């Protein structure tokens, strides 16, 4: 046991590849907890950010600045009566949220948080990912059908049509990114998620900037399709509350409803992770090839500590600005403790950055590297999460036929065009360089 625990520590591959089931299990647990915590944080952040877009405060009462609100909500949802409508198909009704949840979480097995920070590096990683994430629609369709009610049925029909249509454009955009991975000496591309990021590192460019503007267009198509894929505004027709009350989950309540929400947010993070991996250099920090001196490494490794330090500073300022009335005493203390916790984390990260600054293979250095990878990856994903909230605050909702029109008549032709142009460019560029080198 101890042997298998220790034997992996020096390894530079994922536990899946190393065949170490024990560590794979640990990674799975870490990722599951991490994603659940991220969903909770996202819940709070969405409510606060959305509130500030809309000139209001958002949750303020449960904990300082509503920090405990997601936990209170989760508790409330768990304690609610478990209602299954009498006319519903009981078993299917019961299993539908689990399908969605399973699909959303299974995707995380192949998401590379770093070159060895993934559960497994499948050689068909991106295929697996697209396949599993599109299973999520099954949960929604089945939920709408099993509810045996009109609004959920319409919601489910809308969402299945929508997800299937946008999957096509999304897949083609992904293919054009995969084509780019083959732009190396051997001319072979890769479907492995880790391989795709490494290809970006070797070619010295994030794929969003590759073959400009083709990479960017493909990325934009993916970024639009992924919003539709996760049923978020402005494509949230499946749960359009002003039309279909709550869409496919109208009949759901309590824990089952919260599972749908968990699945939705987990899916949002998952598709953002795909976008980051394919186009934004995955775990790589900015300019890894240009600024590759150890000094730069050290400077960039300070970022996680600085970020948490900044958050701690914001929390401290918040504490200082709280009203001094004795009613707010508990809230003040709570926020101060939270700030201190963030400050402690910042300190810890800085200590790790300093301790692991040597580029050798010591444990501290490996640990520091791992933190860096995860930090840059999460930061990029967080940008997408913010965009999701921003979209929701700004845009009205599309109508069903308009949504279909955009999917089939706009996005699909563009993505096919981009794919073909990328292929042509990939074919033409290397010989062109050869010719130019020879003749000019």
């Amino acid at each position: 046991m101890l042997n298998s625990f220790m034997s992996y520590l020096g390894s530079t591959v994922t536990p899946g590849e190393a065949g170490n089931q024990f560590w794979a299990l640990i990674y799975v647990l870490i990722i599951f907890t991490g994603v659940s915590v991220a969903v909770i944080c996202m819940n709070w952040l969405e409510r606060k950010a959305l509130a500030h877009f809309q000139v209001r405060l958002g949750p303020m009462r449960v904990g300082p600045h509503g920090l405990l609100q997601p936990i209170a909500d989760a508790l409330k949802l768990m304690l609610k009566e478990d209602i299954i409508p009498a006319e519903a198909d009981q078993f299917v009704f019961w299993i539908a949220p689990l399908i969605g949840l399973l699909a959303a979480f299974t995707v995380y097995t192949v998401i590379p948080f770093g070159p060895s920070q993934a559960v497994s590096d499948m050689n068909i990683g991106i295929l697996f990912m697209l396949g599993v994430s599109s299973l999520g629609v099954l949960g929604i369709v089945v939920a709408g059908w099993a509810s045996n009610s009109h609004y959920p049925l319409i919601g489910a029909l809308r969402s299945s049509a929508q997800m299937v249509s946008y999957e096509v454009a999304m897949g083609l955009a992904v293919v054009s990114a995969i084509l780019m991975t083959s732009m190396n000496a051997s001319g072979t591309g890769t479907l492995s998620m880790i391989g795709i990021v490494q290809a970006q590192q070797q070619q010295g460019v994030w794929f969003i900037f590759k073959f400009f503007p083709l990479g960017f267009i493909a990325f934009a198509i993916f970024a639009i399709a992924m919003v539709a894929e996760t049923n978020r505004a402005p494509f949230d027709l499946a749960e359009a509350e002003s039309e279909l009350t709550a869409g496919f989950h109208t009949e759901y309540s309590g824990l089952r409803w919260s599972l749908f929400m968990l699945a939705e947010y987990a899916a949002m993070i998952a598709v953002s992770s795909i976008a980051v991996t394919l186009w934004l250099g995955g775990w790589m920090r900015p300019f890894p090839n240009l600024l590759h001196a150890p000094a730069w490494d050290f400077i960039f490794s300070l970022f996680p500590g600085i970020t948490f330090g900044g958050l701690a500073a914001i929390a401290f300022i918040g504490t200082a600005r709280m009203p001094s009335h004795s009613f707010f005493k508990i809230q003040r203390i709570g926020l101060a403790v939270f700030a201190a916790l963030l400050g402690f984390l910042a300190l810890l990260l800085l200590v790790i950055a300093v301790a692991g600054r040597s580029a050798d293979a010591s444990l501290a250095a490996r640990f520091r590297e791992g933190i860096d990878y995860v930090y840059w990856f999460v930061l990029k994903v967080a940008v997408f999460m913010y965009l999701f909230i921003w979209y929701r605050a700004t845009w009205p909702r599309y109508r069903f036929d308009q949504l279909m029109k955009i999917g089939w008549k706009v996005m699909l032709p563009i993505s096919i065009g981009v794919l073909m142009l990328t292929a042509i460019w990939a074919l033409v560029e290397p010989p062109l360089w050869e010719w130019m080198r020879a003749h000019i």
Partner: protein
Amino acid sequence: MNVNDDTARSHLDRSNLDRSNLDLETPEKPYLDANELIINMGPQHPATHGVLRVILKLDGEKVLGTECVIGYLHRGVEKIAENRTYTMFNPYVDRMDYVAAVSNGLGYCEAVEKLMNVEAPARAKYIRVILTELNRVASHQLWLGTHALDIGAMTPLFYTFRDREEILKIFERYCGARLTTHAFRIGGCQYETYAGFEKDVKNFLTFVAPKIDEYEELLTTNRIWLERTKHVGVISGADCVALGVTGPVLRASGVQWDLRKAQPYAAYSDFDFEIPIGENGDTYDRYLVRMQEMRQSLRIVEQAVNAIPEGPIMAKVPKVIKPPVGEIYHSIEAPKGELGYFIVSDGSTQPYRLRVRPPSFVNLQALDIMVRGALVADVIAVIGTLDIVLGEVDR
């Protein structure tokens, strides 16, 4: 086109309105075989603006027919009027269109004044115009927020509520109430303006003008907004006239008809303002018309507050109001359309019969011909754009 043109009235396509072949309650086929889906939207639904119930007959997403069921908020206001004195009934009218209570009060007070042959003093008329126009802005703001929310844009709702609050504050300082104001009395106004009223109103004018631009920035050129509102819920001017539709809905269809100009009441003839009209009669035009109307209302308020005359605020009205035997119909341009009061007096202290012509109720008739053949999402957009208040529809 001119509303007095009689030929316009014959243009209504009756076949559109014929519902004889449409039995909404019982689908002909068994449930699983049926291509048609009957769904019941409301009375508890987030986007039916209260307790409107619309029975939709759907083919997939397409609307084959609608049937409005109303009456869930019926309180018998007209019957109550027969058992109250003229003065006692005054607060009840505020409860009909509760987002534009000031307009309701104005219509009622003017109708009774006309019946009694009394005229409110000039100062009272100006105060009435200022408050009514402010109320029009508030009503349109509430409409905009909820309409945008129905179409999926959440944020305008909060912006409009933030700004509407300033109007409600002025109402509160003037008469103590924010929503059901009961601001006017038969014969004038009960309250003199408070110290700083004019300053408050002027401050509001400078405050809200850029805010209206802000709403427009969010929506007017927004691609999604355009797609959701253009060519949605189209109704022609002739259909509007035939159905008795009034207010911004009528004007957006290109009919220049505004009672403030057509038969000026209160002090409207003193002010310079325009009647914005649309061309296509679609949801987008109605949106533009209402946005323009807000600006025009601000113009009226600005002129009124700068020229507000001194003098008494109440005409000589007997303590016990006993209008002479007779009947009267008086209508005003409420934010939602023509709000009329028909009062029959038998010479006693109570109306013999009081009939309200509520704009929302009449405008709601247009729902069916506006959404036939459209999609479910359009029904929501059209209910929003008709700007109905169920308190007024059901009374």
